[in-house]
Protein backbone atom coordinates (compact mmCIF):
# COMPACT_ATOMS: atom_id res chain seq x y z
CA UNK A 1 0.00 0.00 0.00
CA UNK A 2 1.56 3.31 -1.05
CA UNK A 3 1.65 6.21 1.36
CA UNK A 4 -1.71 8.06 1.44
CA UNK A 5 -1.74 11.82 0.95
CA UNK A 6 -1.50 14.08 3.98
CA UNK A 7 -4.17 16.70 4.62
CA UNK A 8 -1.92 19.32 3.08
CA UNK A 9 -1.36 17.15 0.04
CA UNK A 10 -5.09 16.62 -0.46
CA UNK A 11 -5.50 20.39 -0.20
CA UNK A 12 -2.76 20.84 -2.79
CA UNK A 13 -4.45 18.35 -5.10
CA UNK A 14 -7.82 20.11 -4.78
CA UNK A 15 -6.08 23.37 -5.60
CA UNK A 16 -4.99 22.00 -8.99
CA UNK A 17 -8.67 21.66 -9.95
CA UNK A 18 -9.64 25.22 -9.08
CA UNK A 19 -9.46 27.18 -12.35
CA UNK A 20 -8.05 30.67 -12.62
CA UNK A 21 -10.71 33.26 -11.92
CA UNK A 22 -12.90 31.00 -9.77
CA UNK A 23 -15.10 32.16 -6.92
CA UNK A 24 -14.65 29.60 -4.17
CA UNK A 25 -16.09 28.92 -0.73
CA UNK A 26 -13.95 26.83 1.59
CA UNK A 27 -15.69 25.00 4.41
CA UNK A 28 -14.50 25.16 7.98
CA UNK A 29 -11.66 22.78 8.92
CA UNK A 30 -9.63 20.79 6.41
CA UNK A 31 -10.98 22.67 3.36
CA UNK A 32 -9.42 25.89 4.70
CA UNK A 33 -6.01 24.38 3.89
CA UNK A 34 -6.73 24.71 0.17
CA UNK A 35 -6.05 28.44 0.38
CA UNK A 36 -2.43 27.68 1.28
CA UNK A 37 -1.68 25.54 -1.76
CA UNK A 38 -3.15 27.23 -4.80
CA UNK A 39 -1.14 27.50 -8.01
CA UNK A 40 0.58 30.86 -7.89
CA UNK A 41 -0.35 31.83 -11.43
CA UNK A 42 -4.07 31.70 -10.72
CA UNK A 43 -6.25 34.39 -9.19
CA UNK A 44 -8.92 32.79 -7.00
CA UNK A 45 -11.47 34.81 -5.04
CA UNK A 46 -12.69 33.39 -1.75
CA UNK A 47 -16.20 33.90 -0.48
CA UNK A 48 -16.99 33.63 3.19
CA UNK A 49 -20.68 33.07 3.80
CA UNK A 50 -20.85 35.60 6.62
CA UNK A 51 -20.59 38.33 3.99
CA UNK A 52 -17.13 38.63 2.47
CA UNK A 53 -15.91 38.29 -1.09
CA UNK A 54 -12.18 38.57 -1.62
CA UNK A 55 -11.22 37.23 1.78
CA UNK A 56 -7.51 37.31 2.56
CA UNK A 57 -5.31 35.42 5.02
CA UNK A 58 -5.13 35.89 8.78
CA UNK A 59 -4.04 39.39 9.80
CA UNK A 60 -0.51 40.30 10.75
CA UNK A 61 -0.07 40.93 14.48
CA UNK A 62 -1.44 44.37 15.27
CA UNK A 63 -3.72 44.32 12.24
CA UNK A 64 -6.48 42.24 13.83
CA UNK A 65 -10.04 43.53 13.60
CA UNK A 66 -12.67 41.67 15.61
CA UNK A 67 -15.34 42.70 13.12
CA UNK A 68 -13.56 40.87 10.30
CA UNK A 69 -13.92 37.14 10.84
CA UNK A 70 -14.51 34.26 8.45
CA UNK A 71 -17.16 31.55 8.55
CA UNK A 72 -15.10 29.69 11.15
CA UNK A 73 -15.12 32.84 13.32
CA UNK A 74 -11.38 33.24 12.83
CA UNK A 75 -9.85 36.67 12.20
CA UNK A 76 -9.10 37.30 8.52
CA UNK A 77 -8.34 40.19 6.15
CA UNK A 78 -9.82 41.65 2.99
CA UNK A 79 -7.87 41.73 -0.27
CA UNK A 80 -7.95 44.68 -2.68
CA UNK A 81 -11.09 44.09 -4.75
CA UNK A 82 -12.93 42.58 -1.80
CA UNK A 83 -16.40 43.59 -0.70
CA UNK A 84 -18.79 43.23 2.21
CA UNK A 85 -22.50 42.39 2.12
CA UNK A 86 -25.14 41.15 4.50
CA UNK A 87 -26.18 37.59 5.19
CA UNK A 88 -29.30 37.55 3.01
CA UNK A 89 -27.25 38.87 0.09
CA UNK A 90 -24.46 36.42 0.85
CA UNK A 91 -26.78 33.45 0.75
CA UNK A 92 -28.53 34.82 -2.32
CA UNK A 93 -25.06 34.61 -3.84
CA UNK A 94 -24.62 31.03 -2.62
CA UNK A 95 -28.14 29.74 -3.30
CA UNK A 96 -28.43 31.56 -6.61
CA UNK A 97 -25.73 29.41 -8.17
CA UNK A 98 -22.95 31.98 -8.31
CA UNK A 99 -20.23 30.15 -6.36
CA UNK A 100 -18.10 28.14 -8.80
CA UNK A 101 -16.76 25.67 -6.27
CA UNK A 102 -17.31 24.91 -2.62
CA UNK A 103 -14.97 22.58 -0.80
CA UNK A 104 -16.36 20.67 2.16
CA UNK A 105 -15.56 17.74 4.42
CA UNK A 106 -17.74 14.66 4.67
CA UNK A 107 -18.90 11.89 6.96
CA UNK A 108 -20.45 9.92 4.11
CA UNK A 109 -20.97 10.21 0.34
CA UNK A 110 -23.48 7.98 -1.41
CA UNK A 111 -23.23 6.36 -4.82
CA UNK A 112 -25.52 9.03 -6.27
CA UNK A 113 -23.57 11.90 -4.72
CA UNK A 114 -25.67 12.44 -1.62
CA UNK A 115 -23.66 14.08 1.14
CA UNK A 116 -23.83 13.69 4.91
CA UNK A 117 -21.49 16.05 6.70
CA UNK A 118 -23.36 18.06 9.31
CA UNK A 119 -24.29 15.72 12.11
CA UNK A 120 -23.44 12.27 13.33
CA UNK A 121 -27.07 11.98 14.37
CA UNK A 122 -26.25 11.56 18.03
CA UNK A 123 -24.69 14.96 18.60
CA UNK A 124 -25.79 16.45 21.86
CA UNK A 125 -26.24 19.73 20.04
CA UNK A 126 -26.47 19.75 16.26
CA UNK A 127 -25.39 22.69 14.13
CA UNK A 128 -25.93 23.03 10.41
CA UNK A 129 -24.56 26.46 9.46
CA UNK A 130 -24.34 27.11 5.74
CA UNK A 131 -23.55 23.56 4.59
CA UNK A 132 -27.00 22.79 3.21
CA UNK A 133 -27.06 26.12 1.36
CA UNK A 134 -23.61 25.60 -0.11
CA UNK A 135 -24.35 22.14 -1.48
CA UNK A 136 -27.74 23.26 -2.84
CA UNK A 137 -26.31 26.28 -4.63
CA UNK A 138 -22.69 25.81 -5.67
CA UNK A 139 -21.94 24.94 -9.27
CA UNK A 140 -19.52 22.24 -8.11
CA UNK A 141 -19.10 20.61 -4.71
CA UNK A 142 -15.64 19.22 -3.96
CA UNK A 143 -15.27 16.90 -0.98
CA UNK A 144 -11.98 16.58 0.90
CA UNK A 145 -11.81 13.57 3.14
CA UNK A 146 -9.88 10.55 4.22
CA UNK A 147 -11.09 7.63 2.15
CA UNK A 148 -12.04 5.65 5.22
CA UNK A 149 -13.04 6.38 8.78
CA UNK A 150 -10.57 5.89 11.59
CA UNK A 151 -12.24 2.54 12.16
CA UNK A 152 -11.59 1.59 8.52
CA UNK A 153 -15.16 1.89 7.24
CA UNK A 154 -15.67 3.33 3.78
CA UNK A 155 -16.95 6.90 3.62
CA UNK A 156 -18.29 6.32 0.10
CA UNK A 157 -21.32 4.13 0.70
CA UNK A 158 -24.38 2.78 -1.10
CA UNK A 159 -26.76 4.93 0.94
CA UNK A 160 -25.84 7.45 3.61
CA UNK A 161 -26.93 6.23 7.02
CA UNK A 162 -26.29 9.61 8.61
CA UNK A 163 -28.67 12.58 8.13
CA UNK A 164 -28.15 14.16 4.72
CA UNK A 165 -26.79 17.60 3.96
CA UNK A 166 -27.99 17.42 0.38
CA UNK A 167 -29.02 14.97 -2.32
CA UNK A 168 -26.97 14.26 -5.45
CA UNK A 169 -24.82 17.30 -4.83
CA UNK A 170 -21.25 15.95 -4.80
CA UNK A 171 -19.16 16.60 -7.92
CA UNK A 172 -15.83 15.09 -6.90
CA UNK A 173 -14.32 13.40 -3.86
CA UNK A 174 -10.66 14.11 -3.17
CA UNK A 175 -9.57 11.47 -0.72
CA UNK A 176 -6.13 10.58 0.57
CA UNK A 177 -5.91 7.75 -1.96
CA UNK A 178 -8.05 8.68 -4.97
CA UNK A 179 -9.92 11.35 -6.91
CA UNK A 180 -13.41 10.18 -7.80
CA UNK A 181 -15.94 12.04 -9.94
CA UNK A 182 -19.66 11.62 -9.26
CA UNK A 183 -22.08 11.89 -12.14
CA UNK A 184 -25.03 10.21 -13.80
CA UNK A 185 -22.92 7.09 -14.48
CA UNK A 186 -21.94 6.65 -10.85
CA UNK A 187 -18.52 7.14 -9.27
CA UNK A 188 -15.60 7.10 -11.71
CA UNK A 189 -12.00 7.02 -10.49
CA UNK A 190 -10.05 9.76 -12.21
CA UNK A 191 -6.88 9.34 -10.15
CA UNK A 192 -5.54 6.83 -7.68
CA UNK A 193 -2.25 6.57 -5.83
CA UNK A 194 0.55 5.17 -7.89
CA UNK A 195 0.88 1.56 -6.81
CA UNK A 196 -2.63 1.35 -5.37
CA UNK A 197 -4.35 -1.54 -7.10
CA UNK A 198 -7.87 -0.84 -8.31
CA UNK A 199 -9.08 -3.89 -6.41
CA UNK A 200 -7.73 -2.55 -3.16
CA UNK A 201 -9.31 0.85 -3.81
CA UNK A 202 -12.57 -0.94 -4.58
CA UNK A 203 -12.28 -2.91 -1.36
CA UNK A 204 -11.91 0.28 0.64
CA UNK A 205 -15.00 1.78 -1.02
CA UNK A 206 -18.61 0.90 -0.27
CA UNK A 207 -19.95 1.09 -3.82
CA UNK A 208 -18.83 -0.26 -7.19
CA UNK A 209 -16.25 2.00 -8.82
CA UNK A 210 -15.25 2.35 -12.41
CA UNK A 211 -11.77 3.35 -13.50
CA UNK A 212 -11.65 6.11 -16.09
CA UNK A 213 -9.92 5.11 -19.31
CA UNK A 214 -7.63 8.08 -18.98
CA UNK A 215 -7.01 7.73 -15.26
CA UNK A 216 -3.84 9.24 -13.88
CA UNK A 217 -1.71 8.56 -10.84
CA UNK A 218 -2.63 10.71 -7.82
CA UNK A 219 0.47 12.66 -6.93
CA UNK A 220 1.39 15.55 -4.72
CA UNK A 221 4.68 17.12 -3.67
CA UNK A 222 6.03 16.58 -0.17
CA UNK A 223 4.26 19.18 1.94
CA UNK A 224 4.22 17.71 5.42
Amino acid sequence: MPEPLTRNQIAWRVGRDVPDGSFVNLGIGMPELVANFLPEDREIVFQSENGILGMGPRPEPGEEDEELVNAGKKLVTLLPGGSFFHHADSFAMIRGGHIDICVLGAFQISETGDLANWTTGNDALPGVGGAMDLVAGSKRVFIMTTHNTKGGDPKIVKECTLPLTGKGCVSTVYSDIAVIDFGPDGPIVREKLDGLEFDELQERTGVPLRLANDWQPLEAPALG
Partner: protein
Amino acid sequence: MMNKITGSLDEAIADIHDGAVIHVGGFGLAGSPIDLLHALADKGTRDLTIVSNNAGVGRVGIARLLYNGQVSKIVCSFPRQQNSTVIDDLHREGKIELELVPQGTLAERIRAAGAGVGGFYTPTSVGTPLAEGKEHRVIDGKEYVLELPIHADFALIKAERGDRWGNLVYHKAQRNFGPPMCMAADTTIVQVRQVVDLGELDPEAIATPSIFVDRVVEVPDPLSERVLVAEEEKQANA
Protein backbone atom coordinates in the same frame (compact mmCIF):
# COMPACT_ATOMS: atom_id res chain seq x y z
CA MET B 1 -38.02 66.44 14.42
CA MET B 2 -36.91 62.92 13.91
CA ASN B 3 -34.49 61.92 16.64
CA LYS B 4 -33.88 58.25 17.30
CA ILE B 5 -30.81 58.77 19.47
CA THR B 6 -31.46 57.19 22.84
CA GLY B 7 -29.56 58.21 25.94
CA SER B 8 -28.66 54.87 27.46
CA LEU B 9 -28.67 51.15 26.91
CA ASP B 10 -31.25 50.69 29.65
CA GLU B 11 -33.55 53.25 28.09
CA ALA B 12 -33.10 51.68 24.67
CA ILE B 13 -34.31 48.26 25.85
CA ALA B 14 -36.80 49.43 28.48
CA ASP B 15 -39.89 48.09 26.72
CA ILE B 16 -38.59 44.62 25.89
CA HIS B 17 -41.13 42.43 27.62
CA ASP B 18 -41.31 38.88 28.89
CA GLY B 19 -42.12 36.51 26.05
CA ALA B 20 -40.68 38.75 23.34
CA VAL B 21 -39.24 37.36 20.11
CA ILE B 22 -35.86 39.01 19.48
CA HIS B 23 -33.64 39.03 16.42
CA VAL B 24 -30.04 39.29 17.61
CA GLY B 25 -27.43 40.30 15.05
CA GLY B 26 -23.90 39.04 14.88
CA PHE B 27 -21.90 36.13 13.56
CA GLY B 28 -19.53 34.82 16.16
CA LEU B 29 -17.76 37.84 17.64
CA ALA B 30 -18.43 40.13 14.65
CA GLY B 31 -21.46 42.36 15.01
CA SER B 32 -22.64 40.92 18.28
CA PRO B 33 -24.55 43.60 20.26
CA ILE B 34 -23.10 42.47 23.58
CA ASP B 35 -23.74 45.74 25.41
CA LEU B 36 -27.45 45.61 24.57
CA LEU B 37 -27.58 41.91 25.46
CA HIS B 38 -25.94 42.47 28.84
CA ALA B 39 -28.34 45.31 29.58
CA LEU B 40 -31.15 42.87 28.80
CA ALA B 41 -29.53 40.29 31.07
CA ASP B 42 -29.45 42.86 33.87
CA LYS B 43 -33.08 43.76 33.26
CA GLY B 44 -34.02 40.12 33.83
CA THR B 45 -36.62 39.83 31.07
CA ARG B 46 -37.71 36.19 30.73
CA ASP B 47 -39.28 33.64 28.41
CA LEU B 48 -37.51 35.14 25.43
CA THR B 49 -37.28 33.63 21.95
CA ILE B 50 -33.90 34.45 20.44
CA VAL B 51 -33.35 34.32 16.68
CA SER B 52 -29.64 34.42 15.89
CA ASN B 53 -26.98 32.57 13.95
CA ASN B 54 -25.12 31.42 17.04
CA ALA B 55 -25.92 30.94 20.71
CA GLY B 56 -23.00 32.75 22.27
CA VAL B 57 -19.88 31.50 24.00
CA GLY B 58 -18.74 31.45 27.61
CA ARG B 59 -21.29 33.45 29.56
CA VAL B 60 -21.11 36.37 27.17
CA GLY B 61 -23.87 37.90 25.07
CA ILE B 62 -26.64 35.47 24.20
CA ALA B 63 -24.92 32.87 26.36
CA ARG B 64 -25.45 35.12 29.37
CA LEU B 65 -29.19 35.30 28.72
CA LEU B 66 -29.20 31.53 28.32
CA TYR B 67 -27.20 30.99 31.50
CA ASN B 68 -29.62 33.23 33.41
CA GLY B 69 -32.55 31.11 32.24
CA GLN B 70 -34.08 34.05 30.38
CA VAL B 71 -34.50 32.21 27.08
CA SER B 72 -37.15 29.59 26.41
CA LYS B 73 -36.51 29.08 22.69
CA ILE B 74 -33.66 29.68 20.30
CA VAL B 75 -33.88 29.71 16.51
CA CYS B 76 -30.43 29.43 14.99
CA SER B 77 -28.19 27.73 12.48
CA PHE B 78 -25.07 26.95 14.49
CA PRO B 79 -25.46 26.90 18.26
CA ARG B 80 -22.33 24.90 18.89
CA GLN B 81 -19.02 26.71 19.07
CA GLN B 82 -15.88 26.28 21.03
CA ASN B 83 -16.87 27.13 24.60
CA SER B 84 -20.64 27.10 23.96
CA THR B 85 -21.16 25.04 27.09
CA VAL B 86 -24.26 26.89 28.30
CA ILE B 87 -26.42 25.99 25.30
CA ASP B 88 -24.87 22.48 25.27
CA ASP B 89 -26.02 21.92 28.84
CA LEU B 90 -29.48 23.47 28.44
CA HIS B 91 -30.12 21.41 25.32
CA ARG B 92 -28.93 18.16 26.89
CA GLU B 93 -31.12 18.79 29.91
CA GLY B 94 -34.13 19.61 27.71
CA LYS B 95 -34.38 23.07 29.21
CA ILE B 96 -34.57 24.94 25.96
CA GLU B 97 -36.43 24.59 22.69
CA LEU B 98 -34.11 24.63 19.68
CA GLU B 99 -35.22 25.28 16.09
CA LEU B 100 -32.29 24.53 13.81
CA VAL B 101 -32.43 26.40 10.49
CA PRO B 102 -29.90 26.37 7.63
CA GLN B 103 -27.97 29.63 7.70
CA GLY B 104 -29.17 30.90 4.32
CA THR B 105 -32.74 29.90 5.05
CA LEU B 106 -32.49 31.76 8.36
CA ALA B 107 -31.27 34.92 6.62
CA GLU B 108 -33.85 34.68 3.84
CA ARG B 109 -36.73 33.97 6.25
CA ILE B 110 -35.75 37.09 8.19
CA ARG B 111 -35.53 39.12 4.99
CA ALA B 112 -38.93 37.77 3.93
CA ALA B 113 -40.46 39.06 7.17
CA GLY B 114 -39.00 42.48 6.48
CA ALA B 115 -39.93 42.50 2.80
CA GLY B 116 -43.57 41.44 3.08
CA VAL B 117 -42.92 38.08 1.45
CA GLY B 118 -45.46 35.59 2.76
CA GLY B 119 -43.30 32.57 2.01
CA PHE B 120 -40.73 31.39 -0.51
CA TYR B 121 -39.46 28.22 -2.10
CA THR B 122 -35.83 27.24 -1.58
CA PRO B 123 -33.87 24.17 -2.67
CA THR B 124 -31.83 24.24 0.55
CA SER B 125 -32.52 21.28 2.86
CA VAL B 126 -34.47 19.21 0.32
CA GLY B 127 -33.89 15.57 1.18
CA THR B 128 -32.61 16.32 4.67
CA PRO B 129 -34.18 16.03 8.11
CA LEU B 130 -34.56 19.82 8.26
CA ALA B 131 -37.10 19.68 5.42
CA GLU B 132 -39.28 17.11 7.14
CA GLY B 133 -42.89 18.20 7.57
CA LYS B 134 -42.41 21.11 5.20
CA GLU B 135 -44.34 21.54 1.98
CA HIS B 136 -42.35 20.35 -1.03
CA ARG B 137 -42.95 21.54 -4.54
CA VAL B 138 -41.37 20.98 -7.93
CA ILE B 139 -41.00 24.20 -9.92
CA ASP B 140 -39.51 24.09 -13.39
CA GLY B 141 -38.19 20.60 -12.73
CA LYS B 142 -36.42 21.38 -9.47
CA GLU B 143 -37.55 20.45 -5.98
CA TYR B 144 -38.04 23.13 -3.33
CA VAL B 145 -39.37 23.46 0.21
CA LEU B 146 -41.65 26.24 1.37
CA GLU B 147 -40.16 28.47 4.06
CA LEU B 148 -42.05 31.09 6.05
CA PRO B 149 -40.95 34.48 7.35
CA ILE B 150 -39.50 34.99 10.83
CA HIS B 151 -40.72 38.25 12.27
CA ALA B 152 -39.61 39.60 15.66
CA ASP B 153 -40.90 42.01 18.25
CA PHE B 154 -37.43 43.50 18.68
CA ALA B 155 -34.10 43.44 16.91
CA LEU B 156 -30.83 44.06 18.74
CA ILE B 157 -28.10 45.09 16.32
CA LYS B 158 -24.55 46.43 16.39
CA ALA B 159 -23.33 48.88 13.77
CA GLU B 160 -20.38 51.22 13.40
CA ARG B 161 -22.00 54.62 12.92
CA GLY B 162 -25.54 55.96 13.00
CA ASP B 163 -27.37 59.27 12.78
CA ARG B 164 -30.50 60.71 14.35
CA TRP B 165 -32.70 59.50 11.49
CA GLY B 166 -31.49 55.95 12.14
CA ASN B 167 -29.22 55.44 9.13
CA LEU B 168 -26.53 52.84 9.74
CA VAL B 169 -23.11 52.13 8.32
CA TYR B 170 -21.45 48.87 9.32
CA HIS B 171 -17.79 47.97 9.68
CA LYS B 172 -16.56 45.08 7.55
CA ALA B 173 -18.05 41.66 8.38
CA GLN B 174 -19.97 43.20 11.26
CA ARG B 175 -22.74 43.80 8.74
CA ASN B 176 -23.84 40.12 8.61
CA PHE B 177 -27.44 39.86 9.89
CA GLY B 178 -27.86 43.58 10.59
CA PRO B 179 -29.68 44.78 7.47
CA PRO B 180 -32.20 41.93 7.19
CA MET B 181 -32.91 41.90 10.93
CA CYS B 182 -33.39 45.68 11.10
CA MET B 183 -36.18 45.23 8.53
CA ALA B 184 -37.91 42.38 10.27
CA ALA B 185 -38.70 43.61 13.77
CA ASP B 186 -41.42 45.87 15.14
CA THR B 187 -38.80 47.76 17.11
CA THR B 188 -35.17 47.86 16.00
CA ILE B 189 -32.60 48.90 18.58
CA VAL B 190 -29.03 49.52 17.49
CA GLN B 191 -25.81 50.14 19.37
CA VAL B 192 -23.31 52.12 17.33
CA ARG B 193 -19.73 52.97 18.11
CA GLN B 194 -20.34 56.53 17.02
CA VAL B 195 -23.31 58.82 16.48
CA VAL B 196 -22.65 61.27 13.66
CA ASP B 197 -24.46 64.31 12.30
CA LEU B 198 -27.07 63.93 9.62
CA GLY B 199 -25.38 63.93 6.24
CA GLU B 200 -22.04 62.60 7.46
CA LEU B 201 -22.71 59.03 6.33
CA ASP B 202 -21.99 58.23 2.68
CA PRO B 203 -25.46 57.75 1.12
CA GLU B 204 -23.98 55.04 -1.12
CA ALA B 205 -22.65 53.07 1.87
CA ILE B 206 -25.69 53.24 4.15
CA ALA B 207 -26.50 49.54 4.40
CA THR B 208 -29.52 50.11 6.63
CA PRO B 209 -31.62 53.13 5.62
CA SER B 210 -33.18 55.15 8.43
CA ILE B 211 -36.69 53.81 7.97
CA PHE B 212 -35.76 50.43 9.45
CA VAL B 213 -34.36 51.71 12.73
CA ASP B 214 -36.20 52.88 15.85
CA ARG B 215 -33.49 53.59 18.42
CA VAL B 216 -29.78 54.28 18.22
CA VAL B 217 -27.59 54.24 21.31
CA GLU B 218 -23.93 55.22 21.24
CA VAL B 219 -21.49 52.77 22.81
CA PRO B 220 -18.03 54.14 21.99
CA ASP B 221 -16.13 51.22 23.52
CA PRO B 222 -18.28 48.17 22.99
CA LEU B 223 -17.69 45.01 24.98
CA SER B 224 -15.57 42.43 23.19
CA GLU B 225 -16.54 38.76 23.19
CA ARG B 226 -12.88 37.82 22.93
CA VAL B 227 -11.84 39.90 25.91
CA LEU B 228 -14.76 38.85 28.08
CA VAL B 229 -14.31 35.15 27.35
CA ALA B 230 -10.60 35.40 28.05
CA GLU B 231 -11.36 37.06 31.38
CA GLU B 232 -13.85 34.34 32.26
CA GLU B 233 -11.30 31.66 31.48
CA LYS B 234 -8.68 33.41 33.55
CA GLN B 235 -11.05 33.56 36.51
CA ALA B 236 -12.03 29.91 36.07
CA ASN B 237 -8.38 28.91 36.12
CA ALA B 238 -7.51 31.13 39.08
